[in-house]
C-alpha cells in the first residue's frame, strides 16, 4: 500500500487583486479628499443636535475667537473661474484706495481665512513664511469710526450674492461681540445664517414630558 502523503504547504493567497482594489480606492479617496483649512485661531465649537452639513462652496465664514478677534473667510465659489476672492480683494482695494499687484491678488485667492486691518493686508500677502504672516492676523477692526468688517461683509455680499453666512465662534466668545456681528449681518440684508457646531446626539421622547 502506498502511503498517502498529505501535502503540508502553507496556503499562499494571491494578494494582487486585493492590492489592485486597494490602490484604486486609495487613489480615489486621496483625490477626492478636501483638506480642512486651518482655523485662524483655536476655537472650541459648541455642540448642537443639528445634522445639517455645511456647504463646501458659496459660504462666507466669520470666525470669532475668545479674545474678541474677528476673522473672515470667503470661498471662490463652485465655479472657481469666477474668482470671487480676487473680486473681493479688488473691491476692497477700491474702497480703501489700495491697489494690489496681480501677484498679491493670486496670493490672496490661494489663502484661506484672514483677519487684519486693511493696512496690514499688503504685508500679510507679501510675507512668504506662514509663521511670519500669522503675526499680522490681529482681527478685523469693527469700531464705528472705521468698520472694516462691515465693508468686507458688504463687498463679499456684492461679489457673491448667493453666499450663505456661517458663524464659527468659540463657545466662550462674549455675547456682545457675537451680537455686534449678527447686527452687521442683518444690516446687510441677511436674515438667515448658520452657526457652525459639532454634532451631539440627544434623545428626547414623549416619555420625557413631565406629568403635571
Amino acid at each position: 500500500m502506498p502511503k498517502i502523503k498529505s501535502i503540508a504547504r502553507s496556503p499562499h493567497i494571491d494578494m494582487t487583486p486585493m492590492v489592485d482594489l486597494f490602490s484604486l480606492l486609495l487613489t480615489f479617496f486621496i483625490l477626492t479628499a478636501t483638506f480642512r483649512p486651518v482655523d485662524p485661531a483655536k476655537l472650541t465649537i459648541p455642540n448642537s443636535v443639528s445634522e445639517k452639513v455645511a456647504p463646501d462652496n458659496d459660504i462666507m465664514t466669520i470666525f470669532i475667537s475668545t479674545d474678541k478677534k474677528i476673522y473672515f473667510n470667503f470661498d471662490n465659489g463652485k465655479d472657481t473661474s469666477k474668482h470671487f476672492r480676487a473680486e473681493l480683494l479688488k473691491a476692497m482695494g477700491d474702497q480703501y484706495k489700495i491697489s494690489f499687484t496681480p501677484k498679491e491678488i493670486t496670493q490672496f485667492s490661494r489663502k484661506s481665512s484672514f483677519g487684519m486691518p486693511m493696512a496690514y493686508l499688503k504685508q500679510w500677502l507679501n510675507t512668504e513664511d506662514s509663521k511670519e504672516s500669522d503675526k499680522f492676523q490681529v482681527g478685523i477692526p469693527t469700531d464705528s469710526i472705521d468698520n472694516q468688517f462691515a465693508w468686507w461683509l458688504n463687498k463679499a455680499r456684492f461679489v457673491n450674492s448667493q453666499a450663505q453666512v456661517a458663524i464659527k465662534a468659540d463657545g466662550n466668545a462674549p455675547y456682545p461681540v457675537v451680537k455686534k456681528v449678527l447686527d452687521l449681518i442683518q444690516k446687510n440684508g441677511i436674515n438667515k445664517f448658520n452657526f457652525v457646531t459639532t454634532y451631539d446626539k440627544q434623545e428626547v421622547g414623549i416619555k420625557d414630558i413631565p406629568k403635571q
Partner: protein
Amino acid sequence: MGEVVTEEKAQKGAKKRPKKHPGRIDMTPMVDLMCLLLTFFILTAAFSKPKIMTITMPEKDDKTVPPKIDARRTLNILLTDSDRVYYYVGAIEPGKPQPQFVKSNFSKDGIRKVLLLKNKDLFTKITEYNDSRVKGKIHVSDAAAEEHIKSLKKDDNVGPIILIKADDSAKYKDIVSIVDEMAITNIASYAIVDLSSAEKALLKAQPR
C-alpha cells in the same frame, strides 16, 4: 548542506536545473499599509465636514410693526453669566406686579423640562410623526416629512412663543445651547431679542 545538494544534482545529471519560481513578492506589508491609509482617508472624508445650525432672524426693519403676542403664551428666557438661565411667563408691564423669575439651567432636567411641558401638544405630534416614519408605518421622502413638520409648526397656535434674551455677560455657547433646546423640543416660534432695562435690573437683583 550545500555539498549534499550538489551531489544529488550531480547524480541526476547536470541537465536538470532547479525549478524556476516566478518571482513572488510578499504583498502583505503593502496591503497592510494600504488598508491603513484607506481607513484614514475614508474616516477623514466622513468626519471632516462641519455641521451647521440654521437660524432665521426676524427682519430688522423699523417700518414693520411687531405682531401682537399673547402675553400668556410668551415665555421669556434670560441668559446671563456662568450658565445661569432664568425664565418668566408674560411681560413686564408698569403698574402690574412683576413676574416671578425662575432659575433654571441647561441640563436635561433644566429648561428642557419647562419647554417640553409648554410645548406638549406640538412635541407629541412631531415625535409621533417621526416615530411612525422610523417604524415604516408611513412612507414619505425626507423633504416631504420636513415640509409636514413645518406645516405642523405653522398651524400650532397653543404652543409657547419664546423670547431669548441674553445680557452682556452671556457667552456665545449659551445662545447656541438655548437655540439647540428649541430644536430638541420642537418649539415653533422663537426669537433672539434685546433685554429691556427693566429686565436688566431684575436680572441683576437675582441672587447667584
